[in-house]
């Protein structure tokens, strides 16, 4: 081996280490599914309240959020990522933790009376902002940070609105800042699967 070969080999080692460290497995599938489920729950429960069937709202949430968790658990068992690095682990922990936090706040918070109904949406929006901010950092995607900021701005707006109107606002935010970003993650993931050497 000569010096030139040694230089090339060091460069190869560096490149492969960087690529595998930065490789992430955010397929976007769960974000899209959860986004669709939550937006259905928001609009359905809003419709139920407007129509005078407010007592049904909690059951709409129980069924839809329950389905979401069953989907996530099945996905977690069936679909193992092709690789696991620190970034993949952080994303998995952050999204699962935020999901658990929102489930606790949504059900225990409102049933106990500790959290008023109208406050659920802005509180959820604040947590969503955290999930997207961490995702932006791990995946090194600046546009995702703007999504996080949008969630926080929306949260402030909903705290100012303070009423039933927070529900449709939240529903629209879910579509704009969760389902659509999920689709973009999915596109990026598909590109990454086709060409694993590109980030």
């Amino acid at each position: 081996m000569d010096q030139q070969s040694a230089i090339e080999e060091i460069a190869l080692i560096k490149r492969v280490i960087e690529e595998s460290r930065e490789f992430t497995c955010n397929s976007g599938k769960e974000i899209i599914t959860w986004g669709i489920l939550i937006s259905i729950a928001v609009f359905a429960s809003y419709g139920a309240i407007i129509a005078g069937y407010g007592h049904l709202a909690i059951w709409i949430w129980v069924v839809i959020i329950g389905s979401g968790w069953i989907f996530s658990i099945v996905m977690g068992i069936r679909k193992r990522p092709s690789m696991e690095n620190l970034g993949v682990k952080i994303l998995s922990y952050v999204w699962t933790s935020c999901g658990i936090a929102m489930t606790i706040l949504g059900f225990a918070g409102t049933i106990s009376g500790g959290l008023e109904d109208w406050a659920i949406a802005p509180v959820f929006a604040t947590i969503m902002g955290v999930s997207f901010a961490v995702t932006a950092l791990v995946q090194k995607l600046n546009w995702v940070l703007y999504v996080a900021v949008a969630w926080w701005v929306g949260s402030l707006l909903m705290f100012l609105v303070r009423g039933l109107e927070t529900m449709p606002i939240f529903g629209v935010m879910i579509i704009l800042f969760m389902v659509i970003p999920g689709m973009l993650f999915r596109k990026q993931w598909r590109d990454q699967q086709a060409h694993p050497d590109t980030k």
Partner: protein
Amino acid sequence: MTDFDYKQLNDTLQSRIRVAIIAALVSVIEADFNFLKGMVKTTDGNLSTHLRKLEDAGYVSMKKKFVDRKPQTKYRITEKGKRALEEHINVLEKLIKK
């Protein structure tokens, strides 16, 4: 060229593909065959052969399991593999500095 001692170079890591496999595994917790194939850009047969050599050298450990009735093979770098890569990089750096 110089008085560089070529015996210092690790025999197992003489192959660029094996070096790339070890480098890909050093920064992940575990990875499957397809991920490694994408990283080192080689054929299935070639990758299998090199992975077996790395396993025989004790640099890589392999775990097979069934997920949803489908076989899944995961690879991890061992402590011995990490040390070997570190020593290999040191030798390469020495050669560059000559």
